[in-house]
């Protein structure tokens, strides 16, 4: 049992994966000596050497493109994109190459690659450092997309993602990196990677969250409980594929669902989830599925981000609207 932050848990998970499999490599900008700008790879170059923890030249397309070649040569590259907004120079490699190679070779080529991206806002950063690009990747067949919300998931999910033979975009809520600590039992058996999880049971309404908004929604549930409302919170964990059976069960019980994410609301994950819930739980619904998300503007300057991000009040407001529908 070790108490760790998400940052430390990810670091420990990466270390474990590298110990377990000599083919695992880390690549990215500043991941070596510096240990990454968030220190997620701290100490790994010192212990595993420069051949396994690779400080790359400053070119994201180069990182992902060379990782494709490494994967073809039997390695398991784990690529770090320094911030969400800097993944786009690599977007072509990710959507046109990484995502398609298995398909177009009828399975002859596997892409066991993990693309780690710190994402989400709330850290007072400048432009391009607070974005939530998950839907862009979830929309791309051939990629899988997962996101952790807490240290325990961080520790296990990164190892499971590295062990997967499919390419995985692994989103890390950067605001949570150093926020909370949790006890991690390294001998436990983790839940499967592509599964959602009920983070807090409830009876009146279901909140669907992932990554940074799980914590927000747990607070909402706490606040709602004070007003006599029982709110269930589901941590989706996997965005592609979605694991919605537990969600359908939940919504059939509560009759109400709200999806909460930081990404733009228009065509965000919430749109897909709302559609599927409507298709599968139509007769159980007592209110339309609501979405609370970032507005459909570019991410704002940091002094306006509190208003932009779904917070306790905005989610509570949606809870009221759903319950009063």
């Amino acid at each position, binding site marked *: 049992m070790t108490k760790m932050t998400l940052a430390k848990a990810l670091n420990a998970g990466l270390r474990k994966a590298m110990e377990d499999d000599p083919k695992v490599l880390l690549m990215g900008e500043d991941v070596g000596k510096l240990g990454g700008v968030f220190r997620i790879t701290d100490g790994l170059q010192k212990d595993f050497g420069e051949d396994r923890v690779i400080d790359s030249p400053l070119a994201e*397309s180069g990182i992902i493109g060379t990782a494709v070649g490494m994967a073809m040569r039997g390695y398991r590259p784990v690529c770090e994109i320094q911030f969400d907004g800097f993944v786009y*120079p690599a977007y072509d490699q990710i959507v046109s190459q990484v995502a398609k190679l298995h398909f177009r070779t009828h399975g002859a080529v596997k892409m066991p690659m993990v693309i780690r991206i710190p994402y989400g806002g709330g850290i007072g*950063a*400048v432009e391009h450092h607070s974005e939530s690009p998950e839907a862009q990747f979830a929309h791309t067949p051939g990629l899988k997309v997962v996101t952790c919300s807490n240290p325990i998931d961080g520790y296990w999910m990164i190892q499971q993602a590295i062990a997967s033979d499919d390419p995985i975009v692994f989103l890390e809520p950067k605001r949570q990196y150093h926020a909370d600590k949790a006890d991690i039992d390294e001998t436990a058996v983790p839940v499967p990677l592509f599964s959602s999880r009920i983070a807090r049971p409830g009876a009146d309404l279901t909140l669907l969250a992932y990554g940074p908004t799980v914590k927000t929604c747990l607070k909402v549930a706490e606040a709602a409980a004070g007003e006599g409302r029982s709110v269930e919170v589901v941590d989706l964990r996997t965005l592609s594929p979605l694991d919605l059976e537990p969600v359908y069960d939940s919504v059939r019980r509560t009759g109400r669902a709200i999806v909460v994410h930081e990404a733009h609301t228009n065509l965000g994950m919430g749109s897909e989830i709302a559609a599927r819930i409507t298709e599968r739980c139509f007769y159980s619904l007592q209110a339309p599925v609501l979405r609370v998300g970032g*507005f459909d503007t570019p991410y704002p*300057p940091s002094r*306006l981000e509190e208003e*932009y991000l779904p917070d306790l009040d905005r989610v509570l*407001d949606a809870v009221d609207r759903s319950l009063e529908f």
Partner: protein
Amino acid sequence: MSLLGPTAQGGPEFIQLLTPEGQRVEHPDYAFDAGGRDEAEVVRGFYRDMVLTRRIDTESTALQRHGELGIWTQLLGQEAAQIGCGRALLPQDFVFPTYREHGVAYCRGLDPLRILSLFRGVDQGAWDPNEHNFGNYTIVIGAQTLHATGYAMGVQRDGLVGTGDPDRDTSVVAFFGDGASSQGDVNEAFIFAASYNAPVVFFCQNNQWAISEPIERQSRIPLYQRARGFGFPGVRVDGNDVLAVHAVTQAALQYTRDGNGPMLVEAYTYRMGAHTTTDDPTRYRMSEELEYWKLKDPISRVKVYLTRNGLADHAFFDSVELEADELGVRLREGCKSMPEQHPLAIFDQVYVDQTPELAEQRDTFAAYLASFEGAH
């Protein structure tokens, strides 16, 4: 190769007009041109520019430490590269900066408070680029080099290259760092500019570091030599020597304005501060290296030169100091009293022609915000 060996010296093709010891030297190809003014007066002007630029930087660093800015990109050590280049520009020239060109911005007449508002998080650097022919700060590294190239292609099509009229011929400067030189965008910009013979000066401040990665990670050859492979000339200048940077940039600007196509200037300098105020360079570089570069400080060599040659007296240095203090006060006060944007403003900045759905989102949010009024 030792870090303090040939690399730090800049190599044989290093253009210098003022040594770190404040010794004025000549170069066969690049002469300092005071533009018909008294040379001492011009050098005093550069000194003042560099001191004020450094003050903008140190004051902003302090403001960040006091929580008034979210982050600050320090330029400490790069004053000569920026002032030498900035002062070589003609009014019609156009600049595409990175996120660190505070000294160039100052030369172009942009109020530093416009920059502080970006780092304070009030806006994202919302100045009109046409106001001072100074583009918007670009954080995605390298992207602006393509913008500069396209802008220069526009200048060409406007017939403002190679006319021989010094008031009309125009050049475009693309700033970028040694790290950014690895980006596809920068390499594509080189190719486009060469292919179309566009009037672009690619101005690379090689400050030796890209966050924690040393220049050796980006290039095995001196960066200026890359230009040759793309089919245009490149030069390396002592980026801590304001006279040499001025002379070389002036020549490069004229070369491009005359219609000879692009040129690369590598200003060989050093990032004396951290990458940004959130960075901790002690994790990846030796303090000896910084001590070594302090001996090459861009400002002190000019001060030594002016003093030793009797070109400036105490009164001059004191007046510059006083001016810097006043600037510091103005920045502190201006930063703290900067007006905030209303949260609803962002909805009106997305499109030229507002969409009905975004207008509706704005109105819904306005009603939501209004529901709190008087609640607390």
